[in-house]
């Protein structure tokens, strides 16, 4: 059982990658100390903890050197406390399938939101919207396959893909509002619409999700430091 000071998480409240680690820490009842980082002005602690990527989240456990990359941190937490709320299944094929979709979500799906932000002009944005919508259909199919008729990707309770996709909900709603379209909608992705409501109100998740003000501030910072492309 980790004592409060034994695990430190360096993060930023607007980061979905940090949020997903927090979901897992909560699900597994692991106490931790949270250190908020200002990404516009990175601290000495972050730069020495993650010299390779200089990114959050970073997990520091006891006196060991830091662990970086949210998906790697999640598997680590699952392995050090396997008996409380197992995140990944134990079957190798199911694990491979889960990891495959996490890879898709992180490398193909979520980057489209940032792509949307930096792409100028209606035509460009419409093309990205189309890709996001295609992605949402794939995710709906994946949900049907993984949930097997139950409430979450993980079945009866939150599992790996619930955490991996669930952390993007706040940014999804933000992107939908900003761009006047629906990423998940009742006709196209009915199961995921239901799932969003469930996960949003889950015990381990609801207090971690950033509020709109946080997202707006972060968005303004991105607009400033990584402005959209010129037309």
């Amino acid at each position: 059982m980790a004592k409060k000071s034994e695990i430190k998480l360096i993060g930023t409240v607007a980061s979905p990658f940090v949020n997903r680690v927090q979901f897992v820490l909560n699900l597994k009842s692991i106490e931790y100390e949270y250190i908020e980082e200002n990404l516009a002005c990175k601290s000495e602690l972050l730069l020495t903890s993650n010299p390779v990527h200089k990114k959050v989240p970073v997990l520091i456990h006891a006196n060991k050197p830091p662990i970086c990359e949210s998906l790697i941190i999640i598997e680590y937490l699952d392995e050090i406390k396997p008996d409380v709320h197992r995140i990944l299944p134990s079957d190798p094929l199911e694990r491979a399938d889960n990891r495959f979709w996490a890879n898709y979500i992180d490398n193909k799906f979520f980057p489209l939101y940032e792509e949307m932000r930096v792409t100028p002009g209606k035509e460009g944005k419409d093309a990205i919207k189309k890709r996001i919508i295609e992605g949402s259909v794939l995710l709906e199919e994946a949900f049907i396959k993984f949930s097997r008729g139950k409430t979450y990707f993980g079945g009866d309770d939150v599992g790996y893909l619930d955490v991996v996709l669930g952390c993007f909900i706040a940014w999804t709603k933000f992107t939908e509002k900003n761009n006047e379209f629906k990423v998940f909608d009742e006709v196209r992705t009915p199961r995921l619409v239901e799932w969003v409501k469930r996960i949003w109100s889950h015990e381990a998740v609801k207090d971690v999700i950033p509020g709109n003000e946080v997202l707006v501030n972060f968005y303004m910072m991105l607009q400033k430091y990584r402005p959209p492309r010129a037309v």
Partner: protein
Amino acid sequence: MASSNDVVLLNFWASPFGERVEIALAEKGVHYDYKEEDWADKSSLLLQMNPVHKKLPVLIHHGKPICESNIIVQYIDETWQTEDPPLLPSDPYLKAQARFWADFVDNKVNFSAIWRTKGEEQERAKKEFIDLLKVLEEQLGEKPYLIGESFGYADIALIPFSCWFYAVEIIGKMNIEKECPKFIEWVKRCMERESVSKSLPDPHKIYEYVLELMKKLGN
């Protein structure tokens, strides 16, 4: 031991990602059927087995596909356990380190700019490549392999790119061993393993392949 048609690998001979899988299968002594794919003209089997990405390699075990090379290697490690140390360390902390470095290879190793560009851009690409190898040398330190005493997951993720070094050196007019001797020592150490030497193509064939790619790009 699984009979060979229980395990099928769809691959393209020059793909370093496919070679990761071949090395892992060889380390575990798994017999398998190998199907060569032409990535420019994908078979219906590939499109059926990897509809999301339509990419190689794909491992098919008992008719079920597994995609993404690093995910496949983990699957192989979890499915076939032998007397040798596992490819991923059993200690969760070291396992996380192994995953980090395999992930690093996936995100950072990209030296195709060295043959796709010229002049200043090429010089920049060469410098970035050497800087990358130096980061990996630092991780190696005095250890024989990236994470410790045993050849494993992180080494498997990285070693297939070494057969491209000959092409990079000729086209980029570089001497990698001179700049990163420790890294090349690690390469030679890995190549002593049969699983690696039998899985990696001849660097001269890779060089010819790169020349073909350059011709197609009009270089």
